[in-house]
């Protein structure tokens, strides 16, 4: 190997080791923190304009009586200071106080049953009832829209996707926790990815 090639190789691999993680980190600064079980409060506008509309005044956090809403810090990049709900830790109890105080319309005033924070998805490989380990209907019992958003089919939970508000009460109550921290029923915030019509 020539010296020139060797120097090139060393410099290339060194810069790759430093630059690639840096690039990945830079990308995470503009990537939305919303994912499975990490939800925006009720009435939130799509993620496309959330960071632009929210002025990080923290009023939704201060009025939340259940302390469900927490604030992201600068590690979330441009989403620093925006509110987020960790569904499996403290879910949203749908008191609708936060939508009353938002000064910028980032959380729009909506009624409780119109809330669409996400959709509950049952992981049938983990769910005790679906796996026939035992008869558990915890998610059905805690759901605020029983028989509307969640129904039982031979005691197995079925989600009615049109009616599920995505509050995360079922996720919080679910007794099954997988190794990666996910529950047998999780909230997927699919409404956060809707496009905005200008």
């Amino acid at each position: 190997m020539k010296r020139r090639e060797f120097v090139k190789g060393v410099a290339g691999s060194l810069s790759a080791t430093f630059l690639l993680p840096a690039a990945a980190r830079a990308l995470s600064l503009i990537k939305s923190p919303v994912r499975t079980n990490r939800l925006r409060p009720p009435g939130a506008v799509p993620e496309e304009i959330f960071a632009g509309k929210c002025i990080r005044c923290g009023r939704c956090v201060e009025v939340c009586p259940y302390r469900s809403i927490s604030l992201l810090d600068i590690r979330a990049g441009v989403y620093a200071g925006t509110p987020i709900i960790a569904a499996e830790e403290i879910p949203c109890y749908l008191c609708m106080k936060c939508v009353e105080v938002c000064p910028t319309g980032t959380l729009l005033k909506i009624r409780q049953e119109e809330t669409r924070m996400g959709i509950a998805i049952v992981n049938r490989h983990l769910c005790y009832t679906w796996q026939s380990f035992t008869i558990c209907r915890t998610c059905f019992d805690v759901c605020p829209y029983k028989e509307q958003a969640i129904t039982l089919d031979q005691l197995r939970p079925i989600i009615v996707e049109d009616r599920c508000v995505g509050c995360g009460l079922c996720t919080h109550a679910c007794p099954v926790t997988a190794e990666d921290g996910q529950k047998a029923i999780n909230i997927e915030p699919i409404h956060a990815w809707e496009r905005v019509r200008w």
Partner: protein
Amino acid sequence: MVREKRGNIHRTRLVVLSLAFLLILINPFLNYYLELNFIQGWYQSFGIGKLWFVSPLEGLESLLVSKQIFLPTLIGMLLPVCLAALLGSVYCSWLCPISFLHEILDFLRKILFRKKWLKDHLVLSRRTLWYALIGEIILSLILAAPLFVFLSPPGLVGREIMTAVFFHSLALEGVVVLLVLGMNLVTRRFFCRYFCPLGATLNIIGSRRKLRVIQDLSTCTECGLCDRACPLGLTPSLGMAQSAYCWNCGECTAVCKPGALEYQWGKKGDAETAAVVGQGDAG
């Protein structure tokens, strides 16, 4: 008796600043421990019952970036904008929590170094302030995320207090506040003078303000005490208290012995002063 009144401006301002700081210091405790939600937020957006305030720059950024008119934001901005249009950027000098911390820092610095007047070591062009505002808005529009709303020092003070009370931890971006306070040791109000986009917005809104510090040239003895007292490093003796940069803190009126500098409502300075103001702006 007139003398006493003037000395009071400094003290009154400190009391108002402390009360404004106490409000955002105590309010998270009321919200968290007593669940009193009557007042929420801090100086980015304040909610007192159904009366909402929205900081003008933050509201403007939110409207610009989202490209949608949201009426409650505009109505929330109304009162602060009216205040700035009539009284100038008094928010900066009489209410801002960063200003409160700056005052404390100045007080400590004067005691530690046993100095009556503080010096400014790093002086930039005053126009930097406008460039900071323009740059900040353009960068926010490019990133589609308003920068000032999550990095504004006045907002960060409120957010750090709230995070400390609610989550018993501090957010990482609080170092911005420390940086701003650190620069105050080099040059008084370094961030406020040259880089605060909110201050620049309020200055623009208040450029035709009613309340101004007017210099009475016939009684002025040109002692230069006002130039030393001005925390922004302006020269009220040359009429710069009438420029857009003045934030109406009234420190110069408090030190003026012959009483040549006074708050005046709805008056403009005489032609001679105005000519000097033009020179002061150019410099």
